[in-house]
């Protein structure tokens, strides 16, 4: 804590700098960078050559004008980019935080926070640096954070301070805190931290559970104190930001090689002409000396030839087109403006137009083959909505019109009026009024249904003021369900460790919470056992349908079939489903069970299994209530966009930090995974061998099948050679789902080829639980080995590295985080605009760029070869035959310049009055006027035009007539259609057929049930008076429990990172 002491070590301060230049270094650094480009350097050399009068055949400004233009344009672009980076840096650096200095809290700017400082964070604040949690307002030093900026997950995570520091609750105690932390050097692993704290002669080990990382947001916690461990550039967030790379398009590369070839060609021409000059001077020029004596220094014909070489290099420099670079830049700028201007990529709701932040990549958009997409915020809106339910064999949620036809739900459809309920959530929308009617009837199954939803969950309520309830849910699914119940009149008001208070249709009811049978991945369900106000004991259970259906009472079999049907229907619409059931328990039975439970929970060995068995025992013979369907709201138009991009043979990979199940469900709902796919391979091995085995199996599976279906026996050895062929021939569709742990293994050098081959055989690839760095690695992998253009799209800080690695990065703007947008090349508000960006703008840009390049090279060659040819007439003396100044001007000002513009400009520029301004142009004065009055010139122009156009026309006609492309056919069709009446559009609705998926498995962590029953996370104020010391003792054991469990989870990534290091 002692700042003076800490300053002795040179820790990084918290000032972050993503900008490249400052005011003074801008010019030299920027110029240096620009001259590293071959073209710029080449033109500087040229410029120097032109300054030598013996060699110079063109005046020097023909080169310097475009050169300066290029430099200035690029510099201005760089400067503005950097200015924005400065601005965002400054904004971040100047955020306020409270730092404990000399016994008092003082406001400090973020950039002044030092390593070793103790800072105070308040609710909803961003964490300023990587800090070690010391204590918080919550008991036991717990605090909740949201790590959306880091890994895209929006559910809350728990962090807990060391027990020894958690009571340092006030400033004076903290002042005395003089612990010393020894930890690993800064790295980019978000889920790992090791260190030790030395304090009062004791050593305490530190891990990730005690760290608050920069970029997190403190939630649900009034305040907390922490000690800064890493600051500024050393924080995990900044370490995770990939290096910014200069992105270049394939056209750029093509252009560079072309320019090199042309340069070689130029040298050849120069040499030929120089030799010609030497010969000419020897044979002819020597005799011409009477009229034109050789210069004194020009002692021999060979030397003359040498000079001529350089002169011709200058004259013919137009084949190596400097204006090409300028023109291409301008062209791209124009395209970027078109992208910015496109109304079809403008999002009304958030008032965000698309923005091309990099102007250089437009034509690359048309070449994209792989899209890497984030899930949260990109494909989905990260909003869970209770959209349908099936209660007692009756579905609710669809709106029917008077003819019993299903009505498409749109913005305009009237939603249910919840005004009868003063506590309803205004944002909640539901369209089926019949459900409200049903819920108002006493004692119906509908009421039970919502009661269950209101009781069986692990949500924490927060009542800020009367009637203003905010739910803090660990998974958004639960939040959606509880909110639904709330709106239908079963309001979850408060909970204590032993009770749950509801407000049932206006009447308060308190249920005694007897047990929470918590969720885990195997059980795929959770239950609560409550004693209702009437004294009956009930078990309420919700979970995955298959699990619930297995445990139903035979009496509800009929209902089960009806519900099952509904469930498939829901699933077909891409909704996440949950089945709900209840059971009445007798007092005696419960007592017996309670005893068993008590016994089992004190057992040391196999506690988990025994608990599970016990839960299993009670969750039998339940009665089905119904099912819910939750919509993980996709962004608008996502499935259509994906389908469309698939049609364009663009492969879409989803890389998400979410859980496997969530990711798969999204895969289903946005049509990337389908039931009619032959097989979905799930790779989730934890060791390298397992992963390898799984990958191999999957691959053999695909190849084996297709081999049988195609030719048959192919030798094993040929497998790899044949891969590319098989990629084409595989008709059946496969999908690959791979988890983060496996990915870490699969990305190792020996496995990455297998992974890549497999992934490319599959139609869809979903990677889940991936870290930002892994995202980048995956992109890098494809980029490196597939020679394909990759595009990454994402919205959060966790996508930044991926966006930077891909050829093209796209940021989804208009949402909270700006990091992704700042790192991206293009940004727009909705995923669906990707379709237009790629298929319309990308295509157009590419077409135009290609046409332009072809035209440009043609033009330059035509222009330059004239000089080459003219060299044979003028004794290879490097005389120019045309008016080059204006050619240059026209080149740059009128890239599309037709001949007419050229002549017009010539005419205007060379009129009498202007020669005073451009004395160097003097020799050419009057040329144009006199030329143009010469009729034969026009005849020649006409002839040339005809001769030039004809072959092209013949070819294109033949092509259209004999080998029409699809486009031609479509256009032909359009033309013939025009004559007919516009036909009815046949709108085909996309129907999804897919299997049911349970929502309950998603984004849920085990352990929260226990958390609630233990009362650990209750505010002291809400704790009832029954709170006792004994309880605390009990519950502290629970904390160890939960931490242990988390360690198990985090041990796996730890392993994988070790593996990383081995690489």
């Amino acid at each position: 804590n002692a700042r003076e002491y800490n300053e002795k070590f040179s820790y990084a301060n918290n000032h972050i700098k993503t900008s490249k230049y400052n005011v003074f270094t801008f010019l030299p650094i920027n110029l240096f960078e620009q001259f590293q480009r071959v073209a710029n350097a080449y033109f500087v050399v040229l410029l120097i050559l032109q300054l030598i009068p013996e060699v110079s055949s063109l005046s020097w400004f023909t080169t310097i004008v475009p050169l300066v233009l290029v430099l200035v344009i690029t510099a201005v672009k760089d400067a503005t980019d950097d200015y924005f980076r400065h601005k965002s840096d400054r904004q971040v650096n100047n955020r306020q935080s409270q730092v404990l200095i000399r016994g008092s809290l003082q406001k400090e700017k973020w950039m002044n926070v030092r390593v070793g400082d103790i800072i105070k964070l308040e609710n909803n604040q961003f964490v300023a640096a990587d800090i070690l949690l010391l204590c918080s307002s919550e008991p036991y030093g717990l605090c909740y954070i949201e790590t959306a900026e880091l890994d895209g997950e929006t559910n809350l995570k728990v962090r807990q301070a060391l027990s020894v520091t958690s009571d340092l609750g006030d400033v004076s105690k903290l002042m005395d805190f003089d612990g010393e932390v020894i930890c690993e050097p800064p790295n980019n692993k978000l889920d790992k931290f090791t260190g030790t704290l030395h304090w009062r002669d004791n050593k305490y080990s530190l891990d990730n559970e005690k760290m608050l990382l920069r970029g997190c947001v403190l939630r649900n916690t009034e305040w907390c104190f922490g000690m800064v461990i890493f600051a500024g550039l050393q924080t995990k967030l900044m370490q995770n930001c990939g290096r910014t790379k200069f992105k270049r398009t394939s056209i750029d590369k093509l252009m560079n090689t072309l320019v090199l070839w042309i340069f070689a060609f130029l040298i050849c021409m120069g040499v030929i002409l120089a030799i010609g000059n030497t010969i000419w001077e020897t044979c002819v020029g020597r005799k011409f000396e009477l009229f034109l004596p050789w210069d004194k220094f020009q002692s021999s014909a060979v030397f003359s030839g040498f000079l001529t070489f350089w002169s011709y290099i200058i004259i013919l420099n137009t084949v190596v087109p400097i204006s090409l670079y300028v023109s291409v830049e301008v062209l791209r700028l124009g395209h970027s403006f078109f992208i910015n201007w496109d109304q079809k990529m403008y999002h009304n709701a958030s008032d965000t137009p698309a923005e091309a932040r990099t102007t250089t990549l437009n034509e690359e958009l048309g070449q994209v083959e792989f899209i890497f997409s984030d899930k949260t915020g990109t494909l989905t809106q990260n909003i869970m909505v209770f959209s349908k339910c099936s209660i007692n064999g009756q579905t609710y949620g669809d709106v029917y019109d008077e003819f019993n036809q299903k009505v498409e739900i749109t913005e305009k459809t009237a939603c249910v009026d919840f005004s009868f309920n003063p506590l309803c959530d205004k944002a909640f929308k539901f369209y089926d009024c019949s459900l409200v009617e049903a819920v108002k009837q006493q004692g119906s199954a509908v009421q039970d249904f919502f009661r269950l939803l209101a009781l069986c969950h692990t949500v924490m309520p927060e009542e800020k003021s009367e009637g203003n309830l905010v739910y803090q849910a660990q998974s958004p699914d639960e939040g959606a369900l509880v909110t639904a119940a709330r709106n239908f009149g079963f309001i979850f008001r408060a909970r204590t460790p032993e009770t749950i208070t509801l407000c049932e249709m206006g009447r308060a009811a308190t249920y005694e919470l007897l047990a929470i049978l918590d969720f885990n991945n195997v059980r795929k369900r959770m239950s609560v056992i409550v004693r209702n106000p009437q004294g009956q004991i009930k078990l309420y259970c919700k979970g995955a349908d298959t699990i619930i259906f297995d445990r139903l009472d035979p009496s509800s079999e009929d209902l089960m079939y009806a519900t099952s049907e509904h469930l498939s229907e829901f699933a077909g619409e891409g909704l996440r489903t949950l089945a709900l059931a209840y059971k009445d328990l007798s007092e005696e039975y419960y007592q017996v069970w309670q005893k068993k439970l008590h016994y089992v929970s004190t057992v040391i060995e196999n506690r988990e299994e025994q608990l599970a068995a016990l839960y299993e025992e009670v969750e039998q013979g339940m009665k089905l209530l119904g099912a819910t369907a939750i919509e993980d709201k996709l962004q608008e138009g996502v499935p259509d966009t994906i389908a469309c991009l698939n049609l364009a043979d663009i492969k879409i990979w989803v890389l998400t930090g979410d859980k496997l199940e969530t990711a798969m469900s999204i895969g289903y709902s946005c049509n990337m995974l389908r039931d009619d796919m032959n097989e979905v391979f799930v790779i989730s091995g934890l060791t390298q061998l397992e992963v390898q085995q799984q990958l191999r199996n999957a691959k053999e599976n695909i190849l084996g099948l297709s081999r049988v279906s195609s030719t048959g026996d192919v030798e094993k050895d040929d497998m790899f050679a044949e891969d590319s062929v098989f990629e084409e021939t595989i008709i059946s569709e496969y999908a690959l789902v791979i988890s983060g742990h496996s990915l870490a293994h699969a990305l190792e050098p020996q496995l990455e080829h297998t992974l890549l081959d497999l992934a490319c055989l599959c139609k869809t690839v979903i990677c889940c639980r991936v870290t930002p760095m892994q995202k980048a690695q995956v992109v890098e992998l494809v980029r490196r080995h597939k020679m394909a253009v990759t595009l990454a799209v994402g919205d959060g800080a966790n996508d930044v590295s991926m966006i930077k690695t891909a050829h093209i990065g796209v940021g989804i703007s208009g949402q909270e985080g700006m990091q992704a947008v700042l790192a991206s090349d293009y940004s727009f508000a909705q995923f669906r605009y990707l379709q237009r960006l790629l298929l319309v703008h990308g295509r157009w840009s590419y077409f135009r760029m290609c046409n332009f390049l072809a035209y440009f090279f043609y033009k330059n060659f035509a222009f330059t070869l004239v000089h080459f040819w003219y060299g044979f007439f003028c004794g290879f003396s490097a005389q120019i035959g045309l008016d080059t100044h204006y050619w240059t001007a026209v080149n740059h000002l009128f890239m599309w310049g037709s001949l007419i513009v050229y002549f017009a400009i010539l005419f205007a520029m060379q009129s009498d009055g202007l020669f005073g301004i451009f004395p160097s142009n003097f020799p050419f004065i009057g040329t144009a006027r006199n030329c143009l009055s010469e009729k034969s010139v026009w005849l020649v122009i006409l002839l040339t035009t005809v001769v030039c156009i004809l072959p092209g026309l013949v070819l294109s006609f033949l092509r259209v007539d004999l080998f029409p492309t699809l486009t031609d056919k479509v256009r032909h069709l359009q033309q013939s259609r025009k004559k007919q009446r516009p036909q009815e559009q046949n709108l085909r609705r996309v129907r999804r057929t897919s299997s049911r998926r349970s929502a309950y498995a998603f984004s849920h962590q085990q352990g929260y049930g226990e958390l609630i029953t233990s009362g650990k996370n209750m505010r002291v104020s809400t704790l009832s008076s029954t709170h006792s010391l004994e309880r605390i003792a009990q519950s502290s054991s629970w904390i160890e429990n939960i931490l242990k469990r988390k360690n198990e989870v985090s041990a796996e990534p730890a392993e994988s990172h070790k593996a990383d290091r081995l690489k």
Partner: protein
Amino acid sequence: MGKTKDKSGPLARRPDNSAFKQQRLPAWSPMLTANTVLPFFYLLAVVCMLLGVWLLLLVQSTQEIKLDYTDLGNCNECFDLRRNVSNAAQACSCRVEFSIDKSLKGDVFFYYGLKNFHQNLRRYMDSRDDGQTLGRIKILKNPSTYCAPFDKDKYGVPIAPCGAVANSMFNDSFSLTYHLSSGRSVPVPLLRTGLTWYTDKNVKFRNPRTDNLTLAEVFEGTRPPLYWQTPVYSLDPRDPNNNGFINEDLIVWMREAAFPNFKKLYGILNRADPNFEKGLPKGNYSIDISYNFPVQHFQGRKGVVLTTLTWFGGQNHFLPIAYLVTSSLILLAAVVLTVAWWKFGKDGKNMKE
């Protein structure tokens, strides 16, 4: 829509809905079908054919008489004389005779031509000072170094006009005589002015301001180019207004030819003379040449050309023939296309999916 909207509204950042910004500008990309392309080809072939025939007829109607007098007749002596540079000061004249079989009707242009003279060398072309010929007094006596070694003589006296171009000015002179059948000889009057472009005569070449001095006085302190026999202010002894930098022969010479074989305008037949109202009648002619310009050093030839012009220039067979060739190529292409279309694409089956 976007333009009328209040820009501060909630949709302030909405892009304008203009045709340009939304890339909805009308574009014409023709659908190439047989119905449009084939007629176009035939039409084009016909047009080119007609143009070619017409131009050919026009060209046929022009007449041109070329005469290489380098060592023709008694010019042989002068040719030998000029072989030696030391004889440069010696005058030499010779006469060339020729006959015109068919009268040249209309305006007749008299050209002199040089072969193998490289006016288009870069250093040659650069060796001039436009500022001087523009009549700038300062530059007159201080010509630019581009003129070197013809900027100053060995005594340091500035040369006007300086440079290799002016220095090597063509200095043969011609007088054309018509020999009537009666034996009488009539000199053919040639207009020696009006040979240059308007811009050259009035903009690019000006004499220095005289300020009540004679031209000779203005040019005091300069000397004519080394190879010249007369100073620049007395190039045309008959017409005082045709002297100095605006002398038309000088201007014509100073407009460098692009190719080593070129012809330059010497004079235009003055049709005010009653004998030559309709051009040059047929009969015998002779040209008296003051033979000054040496050509043997660069293995060149010189000659004169008498020609009439059509509206598109002198006798030039290239253009009509090119048109005819193009026309036949188009026709050929059209036929090939028709056959191809007839055989393979007629019923549009390629268009069907």
